[in-house]
């Protein structure tokens, strides 16, 4: 069978005890002695058989007697198939029978015991060893074991059923059943050429064993001449290593088995595989799964576990009482496609070429797979931290902006407060100055005149018009009284123009023009399409603008020519005052009280104020107010 690879470098041989091996000669002596015991054993066996045949299979199954099972392997005892078999079979058998099994195993190490007497020696050994045993079943793994079991039936396992395994079609012995899984060495080559399509050379490594070599030669023929196939067999190990180290490009190595090399040195085939894998210049493929993890890329590999389990299931059926001859010999395929991920990487073979259904073993997790949780965690942490930092920066910037804004608005507020305070102070001053002027006028002019009128009237009252110059005094007093009246009207007019209220804006502006015109300053007043009826606030606003503008032009800019234009257009009424005076820098000069009060008045009637001026360039004041006529004023139309 197929486990040659598994054979270790000869810890022990086929025997279960070293004593037997050392005392081979005395063994044969004992054989005679034991032989006397044989009739009794035969009797017991015959009795057991008779009982088994008389009783139904179920009754045989029902009895609690411990079953004795002998497994015979066609390999050395440390082969991998033995390791797998001795581990799996007792479990399978005991599990299937649900009771303990008395389990034995024997080994035929034909590779190391190549001489012709080995077979007979084995037979004798078994006969001597098991003469007092009656086995319920012999499991024979591969041809050598099957042959030995059959041969031993003559004097030892006469009635014992056999369950056999073979890797090629073989005849079925009496009272047996079996399982045949044919060797398929070519499948590995097919996989190898799929993984490495540019393969041109195949170097088949084999030791002294012939059985796999023959199968290989037969099965590999179909790959020729596409592939040139070279068989490196029976070479001394150092020579083989030298050959493998110097393989041409586009080569692969197919490892069949080396248990003994061309120099007749024995090796554990898996150790040998490790050794050549270390030196090979080309990827190595194999055919059995025990070779995985020994430096091969992979292959279509026979699964030893699957093989052992199938044999075990068959054994359970027989032990349960089924007649072996009634169970047909079945065939099976235990090959599985496997590749070693590390070798793919090592030889630069693309994983994409691995056919579907192939198991990839020994895949090393990538850094991502291995540290995914840490990477994700760290990334999340870093991102969160970054977000936090960005958030803090944004927050700081926002705060700084808000602070700057606050500071600016505070500054503005302070400036505005200062301006208002200054304005208030100036307003108070101006109001006080105006009051003082009116008081002075009332006292100095009107008051004095009234005092004289009063005094003259007293004089007239005492002396009468009969007095010498009585007639003149009456005339003078009358004139003085009229003058007082005129002065009073002038004061009243300055306080509030009565004509504006009574006869309208245009006549009032005309009055202003006449009032302020002089030889130094010419004032021109034009008006165009002005509606006769205007709201009081609009009239007063425009009148005050004109009054302030004219006074500024006369007093501050020394203008010689001033034009006042009032024009209605569309929905607005526009007043423009232009002078040819000295002008001023609008941006630099702080607005005077007059301008401030004008702006205030204009704003109150929803209008706009523009002042354009430059030093030496005169001044242009323009006020535009929305035009809305007041129906109640129509009656005032003049």
């Amino acid at each position, binding site marked *: 069978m197929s486990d040659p690879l598994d054979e270790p470098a000869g810890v022990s041989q086929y025997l279960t005890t070293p004593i037997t091996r050392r005392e081979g000669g005395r063994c044969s002596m004992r054989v005679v002695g034991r032989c006397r015991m044989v009739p009794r054993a035969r009797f017991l066996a015959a009795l057991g058989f008779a009982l088994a045949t008389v009783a139904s299979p179920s009754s045989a199954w029902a009895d609690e007697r411990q079953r004795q099972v002998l497994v015979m392997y066609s390999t050395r005892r440390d082969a991998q198939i033995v390791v797998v078999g001795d581990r799996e079979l007792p479990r399978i058998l005991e599990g299937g029978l649900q009771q303990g099994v008395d389990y034995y195993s024997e080994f035929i190490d034909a590779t190391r015991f190549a001489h012709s007497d080995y077979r007979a020696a084995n037979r004798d050994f078994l006969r001597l060893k098991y003469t007092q045993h009656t086995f319920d079943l012999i499991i024979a793994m591969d041809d050598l074991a099957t042959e030995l079991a059959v041969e031993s039936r003559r004097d030892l396992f006469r009635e014992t059923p056999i369950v056999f395994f073979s890797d090629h079609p073989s005849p079925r012995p009496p009272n047996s059943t079996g399982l045949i899984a044919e060797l398929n060495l070519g499948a590995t080559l097919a996989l190898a050429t799929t993984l490495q399509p540019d393969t041109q050379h195949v170097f088949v490594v084999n030791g002294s064993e012939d059985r796999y070599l023959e199968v290989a030669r037969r099965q590999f023929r179909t790959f020729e001449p596409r592939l040139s196939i070279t068989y490196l067999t029976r070479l001394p190990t150092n020579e083989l290593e030298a050959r493998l180290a110097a393989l041409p490009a586009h080569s692969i190595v197919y490892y069949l088995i080396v248990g003994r090399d061309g120099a007749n040195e024995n090796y554990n085939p898996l150790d040998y595989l490790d050794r050549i894998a270390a030196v090979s210049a080309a990827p190595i493929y194999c055919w059995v799964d025990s070779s995985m993890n020994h430096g091969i890329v992979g292959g279509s590999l026979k699964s030893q576990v699957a093989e052992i389990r199938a044999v075990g299931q068959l054994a359970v059926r027989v032990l349960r009482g089924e007649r072996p001859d009634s169970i047909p010999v079945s065939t099976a395929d235990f090959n599985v496609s496997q590749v070693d991920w590390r070798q793919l990487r090592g030889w630069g073979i693309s994983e994409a070429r691995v056919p579907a259904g192939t198991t990839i073993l020994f895949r090393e997790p990538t850094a991502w797979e291995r540290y995914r949780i840490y990477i994700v965690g760290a990334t999340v942490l870093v991102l969160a931290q970054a977000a936090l930092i960005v958030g803090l920066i944004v927050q700081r910037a926002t705060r700084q902006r808000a602070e700057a804004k606050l500071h600016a608005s505070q500054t503005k507020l302070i400036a505005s407060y200062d301006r208002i305070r200054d304005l208030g102070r100036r307003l108070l001053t101006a109001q006080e100055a105006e009051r003082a002027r009116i008081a002075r006028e009332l006292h100095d002019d009107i008051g004095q005149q009234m005092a004289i009128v009063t005094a003259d009237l007293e004089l007239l009252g005492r002396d009468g018009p009969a007095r010498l110059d009585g007639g003149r005094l009456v005339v003078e007093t009358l004139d003085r*009284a*009229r003058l007082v*009246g*005129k002065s009073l*009207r002038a004061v009243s007019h300055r306080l509030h123009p*009565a*004509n504006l*209220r*009574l*006869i*309208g804006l245009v*006549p009032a502006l*005309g*009055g202003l023009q006449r009032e302020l015109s002089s030889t130094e300053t010419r004032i021109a007043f034009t008006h165009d399409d002005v509606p006769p009826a205007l709201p009081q606030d609009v009239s007063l606003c425009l009148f005050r603008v004109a009054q302030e503008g004219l006074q500024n032009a006369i007093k501050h800019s020394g203008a010689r020519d001033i034009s006042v234009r009032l024009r209605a257009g569309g929905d607005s009424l526009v007043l423009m005052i232009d002078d040819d005076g000295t002008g001023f820098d609008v941006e630099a000069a702080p607005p005077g009280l007059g301008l401030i009060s004008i702006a205030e008045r204009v704003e109150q009637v929803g209008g706009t104020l523009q002042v354009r001026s430059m030093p030496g360039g005169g001044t242009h004041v323009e006020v535009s107010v929305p035009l809305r006529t007041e129906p109640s004023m129509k*009656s*005032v*139309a*003049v």
Partner: protein
Amino acid sequence: MTPDLPRVLLVDDNQEILDRAAAILSRDCTIVGAVKDGPAAIDATVTLRPDLVVLDLSMPGMNGFEVAGRLRAIGCAAPIVFLSVHGDADFVQAATAAGAIGYVVKSRLATDLVTAVTEAHAGRPYVSRMA
């Protein structure tokens, strides 16, 4: 009073002016009423149907121009003589536009009012000499 004297309605918010004007006109006119604001003037005109209205220009509420406008609007055709402290030509012009035939400055009340009313009654304009 003789029937051919013009029947005059006096309108002024100042009682003293009303008294003075009544005294000045008493010899040449029949004073049918003396009222102190615009609405009363309009009512009195409707009920008393004066031949002539002597109307103060500056009054609280309705001013003289407004009263004149209303009188004309309700069909009153009586001549109107304005009284005013203002001696500007603008005022005179405005008064004329409002339908007045006479304009008397109050400082010349004693000398000008009788002439202005007599002229107005005869259909002729009269304006006080401006100071």
